[in-house]
């Protein structure tokens, strides 16, 4: 009985929702004055948190309303995505995330949405996965790694945070490209990978540049290659894999999304006002202080394009993994 009642209630509310949406669409819907919530599927205090707060502080006046940052790390980030997916589709609840949650996890886990249900509206920055070794290790360059790994397959231990994460998929792709084989070792994240490299327990590791800059500068570790189209700003001496002759680039875009049921006019409006906010001088100063890398923010079209590229790339890698 209760289940039935709940079902009826859901049906009624869905119907009502559809009505209101339909009504709203009739006269080109626009963003209202209610506060906007940026949901972040990560714990508070990290680097993405700072980026979200820079948006909140600078885009508010352009979007015409207050912007709050909500951190929802529950269920490996899926709780945050669910919250945005369930919210009223009026553009007041938006998501900020890299591709792990919206693409990789959506493709590999049971979710209420598909990859296409996320509509990226702002392309904030790209993270560049970087491979590094201890500075007294026999491998000190991309070429040496490939050569030695071809001679002795499955001997070098490679630490890479969570399986299928931003710093694991590029390794799989490189192995697909070159045919080399390494021992894949999941770790709790950049910190543990770094400790294991420094202690000489593992051979190679992958991380994002900011977390190893100080160790590279002090000469404790050598960054040997970057999976990106261009070199990293903070590690300008480190070559890309393309430069070394391997056509593997796997940057991780940080994007702002709405759920796809949000009317397109609102998506465009949000995209524009966030862009305006981030292009302001205050936002740029805040970004460079926090090393948030928001100096080349791109709008809706670029965001959609990179999202499609990344989706294709992730699908390809996942397909290769499933074949094994």
């Amino acid at each position, binding site marked *: 009985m209760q289940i039935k009642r709940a079902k009826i209630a859901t049906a009624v509310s869905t119907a009502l929702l559809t009505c209101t949406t339909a009504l709203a669409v009739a006269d080109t819907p626009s963003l209202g004055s209610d506060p906007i919530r940026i949901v972040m599927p990560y714990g*508070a*205090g*990290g680097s993405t948190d700072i980026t979200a707060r820079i948006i909140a502080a600078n885009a508010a006046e352009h979007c015409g309303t207050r912007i709050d940052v*909500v*951190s*929802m*790390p*529950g*269920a*490996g*980030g*899926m*709780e945050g995505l*669910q919250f945005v997916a369930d919210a009223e589709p009026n553009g007041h609840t938006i998501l900020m995330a890299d591709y792990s949650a919206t693409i990789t996890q959506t493709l*590999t*886990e*049971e979710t209420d949405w598909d990859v296409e249900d996320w509509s990226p509206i702002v392309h904030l920055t790209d993270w560049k996965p970087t491979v590094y070794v201890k500075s007294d290790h026999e491998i000190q360059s991309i070429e040496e790694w490939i050569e030695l790994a071809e001679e002795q397959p499955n001997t070098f*231990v490679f630490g890479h945070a*969570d*399986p*299928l994460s931003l710093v694991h998929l590029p390794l799989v792709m490189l192995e697909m490209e070159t045919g080399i084989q390494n*021992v*894949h*070792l*999941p*770790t*709790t994240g950049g*910190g543990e990978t*770094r*400790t*294991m490299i*420094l*202690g000489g*327990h*593992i051979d190679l590791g992958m991380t994002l540049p900011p977390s190893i800059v100080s160790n590279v500068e002090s000469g404790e570790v050598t960054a040997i290659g970057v999976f990106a189209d261009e070199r990293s700003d903070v590690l300008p001496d480190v070559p890309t894999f393309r430069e070394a002759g391997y056509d593997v680039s796997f940057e991780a875009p940080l994007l702002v999304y709405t759920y796809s049921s949000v009317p397109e006019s609102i998506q465009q409006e949000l995209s524009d006002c966030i862009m305006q906010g981030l292009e302001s001088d205050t936002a740029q100063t805040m970004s460079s202080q926090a090393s948030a890398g928001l100096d080349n923010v791109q709008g809706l079209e670029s965001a959609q394009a990179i999202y499609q590229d990344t989706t294709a790339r992730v699908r390809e890698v996942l397909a290769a993994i499933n074949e094994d």
Partner: protein
Amino acid sequence: MLDLIIQASQLAFHPYVLMYVFLGVLLGITLGAIPGLSGDMAIALLLPFVFFLEPAMAMGLLVGIYKGGLFGGSISAISFGVPGTPGAAATSIDGYQAKLKGKPSKALHTALYSSVIGDTTSDLVLIFIAVPLAAIALTFGPIEFFALYAFSLILIAALSQGMVAKGLAVAAIGILLAMIGRDPITGAVRMTFGIPGLAGGLSLIPVLIGIFAISEVVFQGAKLWRRKVDKLMDDVAEQASLLQGYDISKDKLTWTEFKSTLKATYIGAAVGTFIGALPGAGQSLAAFMSYGLAQRFSKRPEDFGKGSLEGIASAESGNSATAGSTFIPLFAFGIPGSATAALFGAAFILMGMTPGPSLLSDNTEIIYALFFTLIFANLVNLVLGKLLLPYYSRIAMIQPGYLIPAVFILAIVGTYAANNSTMDVWVLLFAGLLGITLKLLSFPLAPLVLGFIIGPGAERALRQSMIMGGGDWWVLVKSPIAIGFYVAAFILILLFTLALRAKK
């Protein structure tokens, strides 16, 4: 180095930080003095709010609560014979006797001084040992870490109040709960029974608050209401009758008496510091062991159990001396050795600092500031304790009827606020229920939480070792450090078992 000390002391002695230390100590002594409430519980409840404070202030508050709570427990132990915290159980043996003999003030002052001396000793050991230990920690890879985790888990379970089987069982439940969610190696979701909200595993905060606060509050509520209140009321009547003919001027702790307790205090400080550094051993074990040793080395062992000030001093210094050293495994290896250390570890994580070998190098300033705060909080404890002792005995009389709803609401709001997750509130209630059930069956709760925290690390280290060793189990004993841990665990358990046998 000098720069560092200056910067750290600027952080630590900022007026706001000092204010939070005062507030924390006050809160800690108060809560510790109320039977059933403890500093650990207050820290668990405050965890979600830590994120909104500057790290130095948050640390000041938590350290204050912790230290205040350790001493506060002895107040109700001495005044009513009801230990306010588990660590104060040994204190109540001689403390309550001393009070019945008309020496409450002497007993309380002895407790305060020995508590502060024991605590300070332990802090100094932490400061001078954690730094070099953290440097060694880099030589720890997955194989060594698994040995250390296994060592900790075995000790934690085995040393929990002498109930080896129950301790192990509860630690296993903790590990099992921690396995819910994502498999650390393959990333696949496991043991969630199809509930999407569990895919990320159970969050630490609701489990901690549920186990420590909710279960305790409900349990105390049910129990205190019926029995303890009556008993406390009897005690008040008894106390009133005692007070007739009580002359406070004759009940001052003299210098000679203070000096006579010093040997016991030093024994307590040494034993407490050592036991505190072992993962899982805990305050009450430290207190009882130093009580036993002090009695053996005392000139008047026959007074023990009859209101001996030496007995109070050894027990109280022993339990307080675990305060600093319990952080040693947390700082050096990221392994919490006690429930309190686990709570501080969670606070570090909330403030963006990862406990473990890189904790010190990544956050040097704030950790040195914490060192200053640890020492400073002892002084505050001494001053506040001395000033407020006369009033504190009365605080222990607060009706649980007011406390229980307040703690309950704080627990739910705090849990929700930490992650904006309703799932976490359900986890909190479930953990509370589990805690109550286990308490009713007289299982110790600390091993559960420690198992929950250490379990994932142990599993990960084990599976990492297996991957690196190509699936060969012998890889686990290929490191001399690992072998050392396995041998040490065996010897320690043997020693403690023998010691416990001898006591019985």
